[in-house]
């Protein structure tokens, strides 16, 4: 039935080891607030990484997620701070969530069309938006930092449900839904087959272009969602900074979680665990006062080891 990937088991062991280590050495590790902090910090990476996993499964890569976050994050305050939204608070709030997500989806559509219909290599196609997307966001906001107080909107980033941050729940929900989509739907099956062998998939009747476009749209929409969360969390939108380096974090989470950059595999739960692993590792280093330079070096070593543990063994 469900194949429990031995890779996943390896990651779980590593995660458990990290937890034990923290309980032993990190001050005040075992309390609710620690969980809340980590859940809130991991949420955006996890959400983006889940989308990235789909893209990677299709045999692609998406460098533009950070820029898409910036675009969505720049749009939201522009909308709810506009005169119209102030006059219609309810509608304004909905619009300030839906419209940025649509804009993000449009960015994904752009990537997807370049890749699926014009045959541009994914890393380059998404590099275009990586370079210019943030510029667009900055042009939109005139380069200004937008700060605001809007409790309804900031609930997305600061609210709590059952004592845990809203965005943590959102990330969990996204993971579960996407995992089900991959496992149970025809889209998921086509996704894996397109990533596994594109030519054969075409011949077996898979709608390759549509699958790819859908994948980039999903990834971009999730990135947009993450962008909204970041903005809500900060009560500020800084187009120059939102989502910076997110593409690398997301790819790292996906790969540590067991995705293969050659495509054809989409371990969504693994991605969530991968994101948690990376988050917890960062937390451990900061909380224990490892210097910034050493943090970089230790992170590098841990990523290498984690990927080494993950690497698929062929006989």
């Amino acid at each position: 039935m469900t194949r429990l990937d031995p890779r996943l088991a390896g990651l779980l062991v590593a995660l458990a080891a990290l937890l034990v280590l923290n309980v032993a050495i990190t001050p005040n590790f075992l309390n609710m607030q620690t969980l809340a902090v980590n859940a809130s910090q991991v949420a955006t990476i996890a959400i983006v990484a889940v989308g990235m996993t789909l893209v990677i499964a299709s045999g692609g890569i998406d460098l533009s997620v950070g820029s898409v976050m910036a675009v969505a994050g720049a749009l939201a305050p522009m909308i709810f701070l506009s005169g119209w939204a102030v006059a219609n608070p309810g509608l304004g709030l909905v619009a300030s969530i839906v419209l940025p997500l649509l804009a993000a989806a449009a960015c994904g559509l752009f990537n997807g069309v370049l890749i699926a219909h014009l045959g541009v290599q994914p890393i380059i196609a998404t590099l275009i938006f990586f370079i210019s997307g943030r510029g667009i966001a900055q042009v939109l906001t005139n380069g200004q930092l937008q700060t605001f107080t809007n409790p309804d909107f900031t609930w997305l980033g600061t609210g709590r449900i059952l004592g845990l941050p809203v965005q943590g729940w959102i990330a969990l929900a996204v993971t579960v839904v996407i995992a089900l989509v991959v496992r149970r739907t025809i889209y998921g099956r086509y996704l894996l087959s397109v990533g596994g062998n594109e030519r054969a998939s075409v011949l077996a009747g898979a709608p390759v272009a549509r699958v790819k476009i859908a994948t980039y749209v999903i990834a971009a929409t999730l990135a947009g969602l993450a962008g909204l969360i970041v903005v809500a969390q900060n009560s500020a939108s800084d187009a120059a900074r939102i989502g910076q380096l997110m593409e690398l974090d997301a790819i790292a989470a996906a790969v540590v979680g067991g995705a293969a950059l050659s495509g054809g595999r989409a371990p969504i739960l693994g991605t969530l665990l991968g994101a948690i692993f990376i988050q917890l590792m960062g937390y451990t280093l900061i909380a224990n006062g490892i210097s910034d330079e050493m943090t970089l070096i230790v992170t590098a070593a841990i990523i290498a080891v984690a990927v080494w543990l993950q690497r698929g063994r062929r006989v």
Partner: protein
Amino acid sequence: DLPPLAQKDSYKVGFAQTESNNPWRIAQTKSFQDTAATCGWDLVMTDAGGSAAKQVADVDSMIAQGIEVLFLPPREESPLIPAVMRAKAAGIPTFLVDRSVDKAVATAGKDYVSFLGSDFIDQGKRVAEWVIANHEGEGKIIELEGTTGSSPANDRKKGFDDAIGADSRFTILESRSGDFARDEGRKVMETLLQAHPDVNIVYAHNDEMAIGAIQALEAAGRKPGEDVLVVSIDGTRDALQAIIDGKMGVTVESSPFFGPLACETMKRYAAGETIEPWVQVEDRIFTKENAAENLAGAY
């Protein structure tokens, strides 16, 4: 032996910005743009995207275009020396803005006209002095540093650490980079707060990180301004508001509005005046006494 500058109505002026990824830089750029209209500048602007090497190449391309005056905020002390030297060789008077270059290699009055700006070390020191004067009892400090390796981060750290170290009441529990960003500052603060719940002072190298720290404190149920004192540098509108709201203690100004000063200094130079090597910018200090009145003028 500085290149002379003729007195004219209009000049072709180069402004080689280092980057545009934070509100401070954007305000600075805008200040130069606004001044261009009033000061008779035909402004050539470039953006180095945070790369010192590209900034030198940008200056090169401006020299090729025949600018008459150069305003340069050097990204780093040493790497921009070639740019200063080449401008000098091309007969272009250069004014350094907001950061300086390595004094051992290039000197004001000889290689460039003057340095216009404030003193990052002094900014840090002034924050420390305010804390020493206004904090009662023991102080356990978390320091949120700017971008690792950048000169304002290094200088603001040095100024603060040296001054605060002189008073034995204070200990720095942890000092860590928040990358000059609100989001990163908040995340680091959230984590450090878990490890060091006994903290009662947060010193951030800029206001954005300070705001991030305030958010982290509030999310953890702490009361910034009451049980934790937050102090920083910049003087942004959000920081002044936080001071007014009682969540923040002090912010030392680091003004980005260089345009008028640049115009004035250039005119003085063209008129044949000898310019002092350091045209110091008077940085104000904002506390709850004067925050409200300065809110409107902040960026």
